């Protein structure tokens, strides 16, 4: 069943269009990747889907979306003493619950942290986490709203390779267990090749849409990234 249809989506900042005429659809429970070079407008598409930017065209949901959003790691003062527990509590439903969290919310936070393999981090300060650990916390936060669709924006900088390698299998596992549909922004062809059911290639405009193994041909990639970009297809991981 199709959960999301995007038709002729164009998003503009101050009269110039960041992306133009993007169309794709997404089936429930599947993984879609947005692929493209830096500045291609991938995050802009996310913002339009999240309803944070005005757009032209249609974004049609065939099921009421409950969107979980994992932003790229963001910049904040690392010396601020905010614990993982507090960071998760910012999601609590009322201000009072932030100050006096009921046991139920704390146990819910613990459950979510366990799901992402970060159970031991509850009382650590977020400024002291590795980038991979922090990303897991961001995923745990996104799970708090019981999403049926998760938007995952892959970080471009400060990537901790080891963390990155395990994050996609984790996302896939969570998507199966919790039953959400996944849209990822990725710059990594291998990741897209291994993990996505469908891929939308974007560089300001729509370049291709389809199953990665079919459409990510050397010719297509050259068009997307310019000459000389190849990728190494590694063998399917068995977990």
């Amino acid at each position: 069943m199709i959960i999301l249809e995007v038709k002729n989506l164009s998003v503009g900042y101050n009269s110039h269009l960041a992306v133009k005429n993007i169309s794709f659809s997404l089936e429930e429970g599947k993984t879609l990747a947005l692929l493209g070079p830096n500045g291609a407008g991938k995050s802009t598409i996310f913002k339009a889907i999240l309803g944070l930017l005005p757009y032209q065209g249609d974004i049609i949901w065939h099921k009421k979306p409950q969107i979980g959003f994992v932003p790229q790691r963001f910049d904040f003062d690392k010396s601020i003493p905010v614990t993982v527990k507090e960071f998760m509590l910012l999601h609590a439903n009322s201000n009072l619950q932030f100050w006096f969290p009921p046991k139920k919310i704390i146990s819910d936070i613990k459950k979510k942290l366990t799901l992402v393999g970060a159970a031991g981090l509850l009382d650590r300060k977020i400024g002291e986490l590795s980038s991979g650990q922090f990303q897991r916390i961001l995923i745990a936060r996104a799970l708090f709203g019981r999403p049926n669709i998760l938007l995952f924006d892959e970080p471009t900088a400060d990537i901790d390779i080891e963390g990155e390698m395990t994050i996609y299998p984790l996302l896939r596992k969570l998507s199966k267990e919790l039953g959400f549909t996944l849209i990822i922004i990725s710059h990594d062809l291998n990741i897209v090749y291994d993990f996505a059911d469908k891929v939308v290639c974007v560089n300001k405009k729509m370049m291709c849409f389809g199953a990665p193994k079919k459409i990510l041909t050397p010719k297509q990639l050259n068009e997307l990234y310019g000459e000389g970009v190849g990728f190494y297809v590694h063998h399917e991981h068995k977990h």
Partner: protein
Amino acid sequence: MDIGVLAVSLIVGISASMLGVFIILRRIALVSDVLSHVALPGMALSLFFGVNVFFGAFAALLLAVLGIFFLEKKSKIAFETIVGIFFTMSLALGMVFFENKYELVEGLFGNVKNITNFDVFIAIFLGAIVTAVTVLFFRSFAHMTFSKELAQSEGFPIKRLNLIFLILLACVIALGIKVVGTLLMGALTILPVSIAKNLSGSLKMMTFLSVLFGVLVVSLGLFIAPLFNIPVSAAIILTGGLLFLLSLFKFRQI
């Protein structure tokens, strides 16, 4: 010591240190410092018209934060630039409007001897509101300091929250002007929370300690000033500075 002076000073200490948590979280320490000077021309005008300087200060600050808010929204000029321009213009206007240079100095450095019963009433009323609103919006304010995008995507009305924050800032600065003056009020919003930050292991503890140090710094300043025969405002800020230096030797975080 006059009980009114003590009351106003403590309220200023509490509300400034509470809101200060977000000034530090949002890394806009210098903005609040600089913003405090905007009060000056308002104070001069209220002296001219013979009304309580609090009103002039508050009106000028409110005008400034609203101006900053809309300019930031409508133009591409950086927040710091806008604040910087408001600041220098205000200082210049203040110099033009203050006829009596002695009053200008009082405006800049505060004078607790001038605190009237009416000031006490306003301080208690407004201080309570500012503190309550800060507590009420604590989670939202904290939320948007980490990631505007994330906060927006979760439905936090960040523009409105930002406006509320700026108005609170205007209130706090206006409150503190009689106690420590415009030049030093910025420091009172930064010092207690900076001390607390060095000692805390969580955001809740940092907020709690910040308020505690806000009270402590103000009380110590009031106590020390007559002993050394120095102005109260200077005593408060110097005490805060000294405690901040001590807090750098992180004994143990709590």
